[in-house]
């Protein structure tokens, strides 16, 4: 009997290729005779293109062609209108692509793009979000299909009658995904076949979208995403780069690479929309919530409606008889927002968990105990039982490990010279998502096994954990498993998104391998030359309705030092404890948790994008100005988990771990800043200008 490897800290299978630089990404494929294409972004925030003068660009050496809305191939209308590039003269926001220069080198394409002269009929633009914007409306749904509004009981009256009340507003700025690898695609035709290498979180959808837009059969198209340098949601569905690459290769008949420069990303790959929050919490003097209202106002573009579902975690977290959760959205002349790691939960839990901390202060109650006191029996919004709910265990375990009991709850009670020290806590939650998927498991005559599924390894360790699942199901050592992922030529599978990948892909991998093991047991004689193969498909199973409310939970603790000279906040330590079902690889899981917490640290302290009201674009467009945390910002971060045995999930028992690390982290840091200083700052990020102004205003 082989020792189980699921749960073990197996090393990343592609780690050597990545650290030695031999792993090839979408823009790096050696291809003789390929062309490079560079988009031209619109230089007005709203209006129409009235003319594109391409003569100077075409006169440059190396420039092959320039595509504009006047000569680009007509495409079938996509479901996602952000992909309808070069199909018309309208400019819905600054940075929208208005031309594509195709050249025989990257440098020539860049020079060509600079030589394209675009004239516009500009119109007045409005990019400024406010909660009182006259165009704000309540949509039917928020992202994820959640109802925009949910109401239980009479939250207004209950709030008015509450013994203790908190009525506060929070602001989260626009945020950018900025994966390490910018979006890139290389496309080429081989006869009637189209092959596309693209940096995507899931190629199944890329292929379907390309087939629809270009009038092709899916069988004519192969889409490959062998290695992907992160996505954080911005590569969840195709982005304009892949459409442009296919357009250009169709137009020229030659392979074409479109590699977006970092500076283009904020305008065309989605961003986390800014959210304005109003939180009203009412409680009795024992700290039991009687009323909860979370109202969110956010923006979307004029291209399509995307509504950050930031009020949804309030439907899951706490027992409260009267509640109202509302999303409102304002269409503006801004780039189209989209998914960014934990859309909804990340900004929503910042606001909710900050307000809970404010309520704890009003009550004079420990914030850990306040959360435990409001632990619900069933999911507050639906009344469904939880498949498992480990929030209290996470809070208690985190408090124990962090040394919470020794904390002096009084704000501004610890100092080291000019530094004020404080600690804070916040809860985390993320829903359990899973989608149908397929996989194939082959037994080969040499004693090895080949597992195939079109999973995408976006840096998470998907190959590695799927091999672990296969090894255990087949009861063979890990070394005998080979894994192929990242191509539409493999059995169809959903994207790496919504923290669902491992559950979705692992399910059919587990099933195929289990059935293959059974077949081998019964198989007379050795494995035949052509091998044995078993296919599995979880359609109808993975997507079957569950009578249970299924969510992961967690607790974040943070200690900060606030410099009263400069207003600089530095995190000294952070600790996360998660209840996320079964952890399938302790090494890559820890990496995901720590990565999420680091991104949450950035959301709290350093990351923020500024919509330029005058010009209508995001001011911070590179990694020098958009401040993701540097190593020096990231202290000792610990991630732990409480084991959960939840039989209501999937055969592997995992809940998904890719996003929960960023949920609530910013609130824990913000609550720690309040504990350190006694000053409550309600707009992220907590940069020195804001913190110093807050300290000065409070006379501190």
């Amino acid at each position: 009997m082989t020792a189980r490897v699921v749960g073990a800290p197996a090393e990343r299978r592609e780690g050597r290729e990545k650290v030695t630089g031999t792993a090839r990404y979408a823009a790096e494929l050696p291809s003789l005779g390929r062309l490079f294409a560079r988009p031209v972004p619109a230089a007005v925030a709203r209006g129409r293109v009235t003319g594109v003068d391409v003569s100077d660009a075409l006169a440059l050496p190396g420039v092959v062609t320039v595509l504009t809305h006047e000569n680009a191939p007509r495409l079938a209308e996509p479901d996602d209108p952000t992909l309808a590039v070069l199909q018309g003269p309208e400019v819905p926001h600054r940075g929208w692509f208005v031309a594509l220069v195709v050249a025989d080198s990257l440098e020539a394409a860049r020079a060509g793009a600079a030589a394209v002269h675009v004239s516009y009929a500009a119109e007045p633009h409005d990019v400024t979000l406010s909660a009182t914007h006259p165009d704000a409306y309540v949509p039917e749904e928020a992202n994820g299909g959640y109802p925009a509004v949910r109401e239980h009981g009479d939250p207004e009256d209950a709030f008015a009658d509450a013994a203790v009340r908190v009525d506060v507003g929070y602001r989260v700025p626009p945020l950018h995904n900025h994966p390490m690898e910018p979006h890139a695609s290389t496309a080429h035709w081989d006869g009637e076949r189209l092959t596309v290498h693209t940096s995507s979180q899931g190629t199944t959808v890329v292929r379907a979208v390309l087939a629809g837009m270009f009038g092709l059969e899916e069988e004519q198209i192969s889409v490959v995403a062998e290695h992907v340098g992160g996505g954080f949601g911005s590569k969840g569905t195709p982005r304009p780069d892949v459409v442009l690459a296919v357009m250009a290769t169709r137009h020229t008949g030659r392979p074409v690479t479109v590699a977006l420069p970092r500076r283009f990303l904020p305008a065309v790959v989605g961003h986390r929309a800014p959210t304005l929050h109003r939180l009203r919490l009412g409680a009795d003097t024992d700290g039991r919530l009687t009323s909860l209202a979370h109202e969110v106002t956010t923006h979307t573009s004029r291209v399509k409606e995307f509504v950050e579902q930031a009020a949804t975690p309030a439907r899951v977290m706490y027992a409260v008889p009267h509640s109202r959760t509302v999303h409102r959205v304002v269409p503006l002349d801004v780039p189209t927002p989209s998914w960014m790691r934990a859309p909804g939960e990340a900004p929503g839990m910042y606001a909710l968990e900050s307000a809970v901390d404010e309520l704890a202060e009003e009550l004079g109650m420990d914030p850990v105990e306040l959360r435990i006191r409001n632990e619900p029996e069933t999911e507050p919004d639906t009344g469904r039982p939880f498949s498992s709910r480990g929030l209290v265990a996470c809070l208690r375990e985190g408090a124990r490990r962090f040394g919470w009991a020794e904390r002096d709850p009084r704000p501004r009670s610890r100092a080291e010279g000019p530094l004020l020290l404080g600690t804070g806590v916040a809860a985390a939650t993320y829903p359990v998502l899973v989608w149908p998927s397929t996989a194939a498991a082959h037994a080969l005559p040499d004693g090895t096994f080949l597992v195939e599924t079109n999973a995408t390894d976006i840096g998470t360790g998907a190959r590695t954990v799927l091999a672990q699942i296969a090894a255990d199901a087949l009861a063979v050592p890990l070394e005998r498993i080979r894994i192929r992922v990242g191509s539409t030529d493999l059995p169809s599978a959903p994207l790496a998104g919504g923290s669902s990948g491992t559950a979705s892909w692992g399910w059919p991998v587990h099933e195929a391998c289990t059935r293959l093991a059974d077949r081998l047991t019964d198989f007379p004689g050795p494995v035949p030359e052509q091998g044995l193969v078993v296919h599995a498909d979880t359609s109808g199973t993975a997507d079957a309705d569950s009578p249970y409310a299924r969510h992961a939970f967690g607790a974040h603790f943070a200690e900060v030092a606030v410099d009263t000279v400069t207003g600089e906040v530095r995190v000294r330590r952070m600790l996360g404890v998660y209840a996320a079902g079964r952890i399938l690889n302790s090494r890559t899981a820890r990496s995901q948790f720590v990565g999420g917490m680091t991104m949450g640290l950035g959301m709290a302290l350093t990351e923020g994008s500024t919509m330029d009201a005058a010009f209508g674009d995001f001011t911070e467009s590179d990694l020098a100005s958009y401040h993701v945390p540097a190593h020096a910002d990231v202290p000792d971060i610990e991630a732990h988990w409480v084991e959960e045995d939840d039989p209501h999930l999937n055969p592997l028992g995992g809940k998904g771990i890719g996003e929960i690390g960023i949920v609530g982290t910013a609130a824990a840091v913000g609550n720690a800043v309040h504990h350190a200083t006694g000053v409550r700052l309600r707009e992220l990020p907590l940069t020195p200008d804001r913190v110093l102004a807050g300290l000065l205003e409070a006379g501190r």
Partner: protein
Amino acid sequence: MKSFAYVRAGSLAEAADAYASHPGARYLGGGTNLVDLMKLGVEQPTALIDVTRLPLDEVTELPDGSLRVGALVRNSDLAAHPRVRDRYPALSQALLAGASGQLRNAATTGGNLLQRTRCPYFQDVSKPCNKREPGSGCGAREGVHRDHAVLGYSERCIATHPSDMAVALAALDAQVELYGLAGVRRVHAADFHRLPGEHPERDTVVEPGELVTGVLLPSATAGLPSAYRKARDRASYAFALASVAVVLEVADGVVRHAGIAFGALAHRPWRARLAEEALVGAAPTAAAFERAVDLELSAARPLRDNAYKVPLARNLALDVLTRLARPGEDS
């Protein structure tokens, strides 16, 4: 692509000749800023004259006790130089507060002085910028300017100079050595960068063709207590929101020498002459420091979104002055 000539200069004379024969040329040092700007289309030189092979990569102690820093000494090497660390700690600290380790390894002393503003409107050729394109307007004025100037700006330009090193050099009374066809001249570091006035396109007093060959750190400030402090949005790899370099000599209960320069407040390192004059001869008390710093900063005219810079710069200056006035304590 936009082609340009590349010339590797073997001597100063060759460099100057190459510059003269290529109108629109730029000298190339570490390239950490210039090459970025070329990619952005902000800089479009006709020729790059690579000066990195010139023999300007040494720190030399001169007989009078001053230090001569070659223009090609890398920022990392200068920060780590024992004489610099011992005698001019503010300079070492300023260098280490700048950029990232990788950038400091590539960036040169001369290039650090000559780096351009990081104003986002300067870097975006689709927007107006009087510095990049004189007469086109200033995008930052009505746009996003949290990081911009509060002192000495003009209607034409509100950009700040991004260097940390230059702020320390200004406070330390360093001089910049320039080589041109007319010979060698020296300029005080505090006067090396200009205020924008009517000509924001001119960052410095360097004349066309002149090459920064070195920096002289004077013996007069060698060994005096000095320090640099910077506030920034993240702990590393971020430009200053405000910074200060201070050189302070106290003897017999009286300030004998004060050199104070602010960073990130103006188009150049802002030498705080008013504050210095107020301090010299005074007792180094908290009240005297506050009076002096407030006097200097009373000239500040914050813009819509950068009023925080004034109290921030004040706090930084008072903190560093106070620490330097109490030798023996942790700096």
